[in-house]
Every structure is written in structure tokens, then in C-alpha cells.
């Protein structure tokens, strides 16, 4: 045992003793410390929270819950959740290695949510917006009937109130347990976006780690402006499926936010710390464009 190991062991022992004394379980210990998946550094949770769950050392963006995202983006206590009591069923009586109903219960416990999206109206630096925020912890953020319905109602609500609509995605794709019904949610949500377009309501999408499949191929990439969060993996087909199809190794940066930016698929890549400011700026510029030119002036311009 090297001297260093000995010290390490002694420190751990001391820490464990402290824990026993203060009756903190191992579970809570993991709540006190976070480990970066990218650079493996252990970071005190407090510090991580202060840095918006971005690794202070390597800038890796941790996957975050819908609630945390809302706290980060919306003005304090401004977010009012809507349609929170829409709950999933098991329309196909789907059972794989587990019953779909049991999977839903597990997902509730794991995510503290009753479905994979939280929708509501809130303010971003004073600008009112309707937002749908997905949570990967609930069944991989998959889109079934409930996600489709909540996103659609949110878009319809944004249109009714004539306010910008924001969708923040984090999803593995459509929910297989609802089969074709989940496929139809892609059509349903996209039809709602079509109405927002026709009413000239600004629709912004923020693609976060990870966004794939049915969400990429529907409301996720239909934003008038598409923002990708730094480092997020975004794509249509999964990496493994592509590798198996083309029998080729893929470049390491394949399907990252930065890769998509390079190929012109997103408008910008945003660091988490700059996201709120970016959204505020985009909303403000668009909103002020609408009110800045009075109708009279418009008429005069068109006459001239």
C-alpha cells in the first residue's frame, strides 16, 4: 500500500464515520457528490448546482431533470404547470420483459413525475412563453400518447395566448409500448406546429442530451429557431443501428450538437449558462419586431 493509498483509506474511513454519526445513508452520499461522466472528477453537489450541472473542470453538461431545467430558465415562481393530470394507460396491454403499467410506476419513482414531459406557462426574463420540457428519467423521455397530447395542448395554448412556444427535448424517441399510437403523436404534434406557423407564433426548440427518433422527426426539429445544447447527442437513427447498417465505425463527434451545427442542421449551439439569455434575446427581438412597426407605417410602406 502506498502512502497515498493509506491516506486515502484513512480519509474515507473518517468520512464514513462522519456519515454514520450524522446518519447519512450511502444514497445521500451520492447526493452530496457528483461524478463527471466525462472526466471522472468528483465534484461537490453544491458546486455542481451552482454551475448549473455543468462540470466545472471539463464543461461536460450533465443530463438534468425537467424541474431543474425550469428553475434554470424561468423567473422565480413564474412557471405555472398546465395539464399535469393527464396520465398514461396501457392501450395495447403491452408486456415485454415487464408490464407497461409496471414500467410506468417505476418511471414515476425514478423521475418524480407522472409522465415524460412537463408543460406550462412562465416568464423568461419577463417575457411570457409557453414551454414543454421533457425529462429523460421517465422512460427515456419517450413519446407516447400523453407526451403527444401535452405538447399539442401546450402549442394550442401558446397560439391562443399569442405567446412564443418553446420545446426543450430530451428523448430516446417514440414509446414502443404504445406502438402505432405513439407514431401518431409525431403527426399530431407536427400538425399543431403547422397551426403555430400559420398564426405566426414563434416556436423555438432546444435539443438537449439526448434527442432521437420520433422526437427528432417531429416537433423537436420543427422550431423556427433550433438551439442545440452544448455536447448533446442528437439524431434520427441510433448510433448502433447506423453502425450495423453501414458496417463502419462512426467518428466520435458524430451526432453531437457541434456536428449538427457544422452540417447546417441547427441554428446554434448554446452553453447551458447562456441558454436563458439566448432565449430571452430571440424572444425579445421577435416580439419587438411585431410591435415596433405600427400598422399605419406598414400601409404607407406598401403604398409606396
Amino acid at each position, binding site marked *: 500500500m502506498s502512502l497515498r493509498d493509506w491516506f486515502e483509506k484513512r480519509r474515507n474511513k473518517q468520512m464514513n464515520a462522519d456519515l454514520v454519526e450524522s446518519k447519512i445513508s450511502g444514497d445521500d452520499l451520492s447526493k452530496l457528490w457528483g461524478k463527471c461522466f466525462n472526466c471522472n472528477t468528483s465534484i461537490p453537489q453544491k458546486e455542481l448546482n451552482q454551475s448549473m450541472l455543468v462540470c466545472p473542470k471539463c464543461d461536460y453538461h450533465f443530463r438534468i431533470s425537467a424541474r431543474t431545467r425550469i428553475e434554470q430558465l424561468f423567473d422565480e415562481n413564474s412557471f405555472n404547470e398546465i395539464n399535469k*393530470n*393527464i*396520465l*398514461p*394507460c396501457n*392501450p*395495447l396491454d*403491452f*408486456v*415485454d*420483459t415487464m408490464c407497461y403499467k409496471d414500467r410506468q410506476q417505476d418511471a414515476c419513482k425514478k423521475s418524480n413525475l407522472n409522465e415524460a414531459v412537463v408543460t406550462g406557462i412562465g416568464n423568461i426574463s419577463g417575457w411570457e412563453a409557453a414551454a414543454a420540457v421533457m425529462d429523460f428519467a421517465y422512460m427515456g423521455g419517450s413519446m*407516447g*400518447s*400523453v407526451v*403527444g*397530447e401535452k405538447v*399539442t395542448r401546450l402549442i394550442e395554448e401558446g397560439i391562443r395566448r399569442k405567446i412564443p412556444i418553446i420545446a426543450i427535448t430530451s428523448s430516446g424517441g*417514440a*414509446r*414502443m409500448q*404504445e*406502438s*402505432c*399510437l*405513439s*407514431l*401518431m*403523436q*409525431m*403527426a*399530431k404534434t*407536427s*400538425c399543431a*406546429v*403547422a*397551426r403555430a*406557423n*400559420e398564426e405566426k407564433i414563434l416556436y423555438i426548440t432546444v435539443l438537449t442530451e439526448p434527442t432521437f*427518433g*420520433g422526437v*427528432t*422527426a*417531429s*416537433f*423537436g*426539429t*420543427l422550431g423556427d429557431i433550433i438551439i442545440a445544447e452544448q455536447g448533446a447527442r442528437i*439524431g*434520427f*437513427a*441510433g448510433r448502433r*443501428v*447506423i453502425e450495423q*447498417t*453501414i458496417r463502419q465505425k*462512426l467518428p466520435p463527434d*458524430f*451526432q453531437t450538437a457541434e456536428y449538427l451545427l457544422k*452540417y447546417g*442542421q441547427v441554428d446554434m449551439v448554446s452553453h447551458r449558462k447562456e441558454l436563458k439569455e439566448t432565449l430571452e434575446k430571440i424572444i425579445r427581438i421577435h416580439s419587438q419586431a411585431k410591435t415596433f412597426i405600427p400598422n399605419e407605417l406598414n400601409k404607407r410602406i406598401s403604398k409606396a
Partner: protein
Amino acid sequence: MNSLLTPLEFEKSIYQIEDKIEELKNLSADSGINLDDQIKILTEQATEYKKQLYSHLSPSQKLLIARHPKRPSFLDYVSLITTDWTEFHGDRAGTDDKAIIGGIAQIEGKSVMLIGTQKGKTTKENIEYNFGMPQPEGYRKALRLFYHADRFNLPIITMIDTPGAYPGIKAEQTGQGIAIAVNLREMAKLEVPIISIILGEGCSGGALGIAVSNRVYMLEHSYYTVISPEGCASILWRSADMASTAADAMKITAEDLLKLGVIDGIIKEPLGGAHYDWDLIASELKNTVIETLNEMSNMSGEHLKKDRYDKFRRMGVFVE
């Protein structure tokens, strides 16, 4: 049965009975013994057996029929039901994806736009059509033709037979997801009738990308799903061998999807499947198209749009 077709695994017993009948006929002809009664009884039994077999197919048996290499393709239907077919090529941005084909034609004097995913029957054809798996450019070609149809008041008929949109490097670089998403959104804005027919495989977003329609029909033995049964099995059961279990669980048959309200009707196939009688299935399909076009002929553009919105707005099952 058509002796040129290779029997599917579950059809082998039928072929054996038919071989026996054939033998009896030969025997009767050669020896001059009258076996007509026996042959008649056996033929009746065989027909009854076939009816039973094909009306109780499991989802994975239907998969085999839906993917049958001799099943008529989009272009086969085009030549069987239309006149003056005129194909249009290209996405006007550098590519002509052959997996999606489009053009104008007339069906019993009615001018229409036809767009479909195309699968080949030979290896050479399949390479040309990329096994019916479109690239983003294919969806963009379809979109260009949708707009064209909208501008010139041509009802749109789309036919779908695809194992899915192509998963590849270039497809991701040029926005496979975005191309499909944009089609879903833009189809919602069109002011002409849109009819879609799932011919064989209707797999995932790749199928839906040209199927946000006023009426969606499925051929009796086709399937329509969010992911292929093989894909679903390898994710949820962690084994592609569970594909038939996944096919059962996912409710992918026309009958199931009609019950779930995902589709509007089923086009009945000839006994054994569409590949046994192309003319018969083509005339069934044509009748359905004509009837549906007539039914929608008095609807205004706004009405058609609303009809489409309401149709998809209703989809989904949840409690509140």
C-alpha cells in the same frame, strides 16, 4: 396456386395438398381411371383449408406476406390503375432519391399526384431503390411534389412500402429527422385531399413522412408500426429472436390498427396475399381510391385541412 411462387413456411402444407391433387389428375389422365369425385372433394377441402389459414394469420405470418418479394410495388399499382403516368424527378437541390417516386397521372379520368416509396423485386432493382429506404432528399422531393399538387389542385395519393427511412451517415448530416418532421408539418397545411395506402411495410417515421393524410388505408396483410418488430425485440427483449413476440405485442396488423382508430379502412387481398392476383388487388385498391376521392370531392381546402387536423388530434389513449 401459382406454381411460380415459392411457398412460405406456413404455406407448405397447402402446396403439398395441391401437389397431391395434381398427381391424382395425372394419374387419372394416364390410367383412364375416373378420379373426378376424389379430386373434387380434395380441391374443396384445400380451398376451405386455405380460407381458414389465411383468415387466421399471426402477425409474424403476415409480416412474411407483407415482405414477399413478388408483392406488387408502388410502380406496379401505378401501371395497373392509372393512365398517362408522368414521373417527376429530383429534389431541386442536387439529388434524385429513387426510394421515393412521384408523378402525375389520371385514374378514371381524375387527375392526381401519386407519390410512393418503391421497393425492387430483384437485387439490382433493390440497390437502385435502396430497398425502399428513403434518404432525406427523398422526403424533400415528396415535399416539392406536395406543394405542386396543392398549387394545381391535384389530389395526392401516397403509397407506402418501406422498412423505414435510411439510417446512414449522410442521412444524418443532411437531416433525416428534420426532413420527415417538415413533411408531417407541411402535409397538415395542404388544401387538397390526401389518401395514403400502406401496401406492405409501413415502418416508423419513414412511412409516416408521406402519410399525414385525410384517409389512411392498409392492405389486408400489410403492417404499420413505430419500429420494426426486429428492432423492438432487440431493444425491449434484448434479442432479435423475439421478433414474433414483439410483432404480437405491438398490434401492427390492419385489423388491430382499425380497432385502435389509427387507420380508416382495410383493402381486402386475394386469397394468399396480393402477390397471388395483381389485377384483383389493383382493382380493389382503385375502387377504394375512387370512392374516397368522390367522398371528398365537395370538401373545401379549409375543410380538408380541418378534417386532417381533427383526425390526428384525436389519436392517443390517456386518462385525465
